[in-house]
């Protein structure tokens, strides 16, 4: 079980995120605005909640492969969960 750190800035890095089942993902907000990362299914698979500038999100256990978006940055990414 590992943790993947993803930077939210002008782009998402890394993207796509490749993890195994049970791994966690932490998003770091490197913008100057509050950001939220949520799965494309209206946040049904996961949502980070608001991430303050310069802060990390909670370590989210993404249960299944999903696309996601970051608002208000308007970024889109993918989490690939290899079971």
């Amino acid at each position, binding site marked *: 079980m590992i943790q993947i750190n993803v930077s939210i800035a002008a782009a998402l890095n890394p993207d796509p995120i490749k993890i195994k089942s049970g791994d*966690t993902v932490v998003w770091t907000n490197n913008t100057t605005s509050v950001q939220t990362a949520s799965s494309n299914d209206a946040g049904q698979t996961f949502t980070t909640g608001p991430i303050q500038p*310069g802060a990390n999100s909670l370590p989210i256990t993404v249960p299944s492969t999903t696309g996601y978006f970051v608002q208000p940055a308007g970024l889109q990414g993918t989490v690939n969960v290899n079971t």
Partner: protein
Amino acid sequence: MQGPRRLSLLFFLFICAASYSASAQTCGLSPAPVDLQGVRPLEINTGIGPGTCGFLQFAWQDFLALNWLPLPVVPGNSTAIARGLPDVSQVIGKAKNNAPAVWEQFQPNWYQFWPNNPPPGAVGGDSFAAWNQNAWLPAACGPLQSKLNPDAPPPRILSSLSKFDAMPGVLQAGSAAPLIDQDGYYVRYEILMDYPAFNYINSNQFYLLSKEQAYAQQGQPFSFPVQNGGTPGATFIKAAWKTLNPGEINSGRFHLAQAFLFTPASPQVGATCAGPVTVGLVGLHIVQKTQAFPLWLWATFEQVDSTPADPANPGSAPPEGWSFWQQGSSKPANSPPPCPDGTTDSSQCDFQPTSSHMGTAPNDKTGGPTQAVRKNPILKSPNQPALGLINAAAQSALKQINPSTEWQYYELVEAQWQKAPGFFPPNKVANMTMETYTQGGSCMGCHKGATAPLGETPPPVSSDLTFELQLAWQQTVLPVSRVPALRSNSAPNKPSAKQPGKKEAAK
């Protein structure tokens, strides 16, 4: 003899041997009034020495039984208790550390005290239907639960940032500050109750202020039930959970759960529900009433990696470091963090609960992780030497059951009970994860002042040492939206049961 039964017997024999083979300074788990098959103790055996051993033995027996693997919940059962029952074919410590525990099936206080949405009423004095159904979820959490792995243990819904903030939507003025772990995340809390406590409130409709007032006007004291037959007395559970990093998850030293972290709306932001997140149990209060001790037995456990038992002699750090303490830190000890914006009015605070708080971000004035220092070293407890002896005996027994069980990494920090009218030593009892900033007091010292929220007419009356009755709501308060739970809070690998429909709260 079947495997699980044999293992249980071996467990029992082991602790018997451990107890009898030592000197008079032994305090183990035997002779036991229960057979250690998940059965909760009913009464304290005060005759067991040395000193306070009987009380501490009761506390550990309760801890073991409450953390037993539970039977699956039957949410639709309206004729018997079908939630929070042990699976006596199992043995504690044999399951994975993310398997649910009996107490995790107990009902949370926010389910019973949800404004304008009480559980189903009692029938014939019992509240089986209300007890067995799955608690409603805050609307913000509803969408997140639909895609969870049905074979995984059910999620916790963790709301409070402080154990004093008992209910979503009620961020009480003057509530204690949150605790920030070494990764910068807030500890989350929940309060649950067993069936006797739940039924006492539900059958009397004490979730309504008007019912509490009418009851008090009759001159009747509030009195939760003691044990009855084989049913334990009323019990309240308070749990503290820490967001875990991968090292802590892999360590096998924490009891795990998947959780959604719900945060009620603040003046600044709406309600949020983030997750799923892997959390670890770091603190557990068990408060149980008995016939002989109607002022309850107060016992509190911690995961051993929280902070050193004695800060003056911290010893070696645990493999993943201390959860709430850092060697050599120059930060002031037990300093309540301000709000992230630097203000200190917690009733108006935007806690920014879904972000880390390391104190390094531009707008994070929290100061970062709390330096939590134990003011009441465990080795200096008035309950020593029994406290140390029974902790060692229980941890050893658990390790014998399974060398990798997470339960061996939990310890009884302290216990308290009435020794004489108005006399409640030790007078300093604190769980580092729940009373970080109030270690000069004690459970009973605080709770003896609990009253029902009756105002001046009639004057406040004692609420039997629990603050839960203060959550009673006026029938005129605005409804809080909620959604049905889709999954049963039951053992893993069992079919989930869809919650029977009930109208969502009127908008």
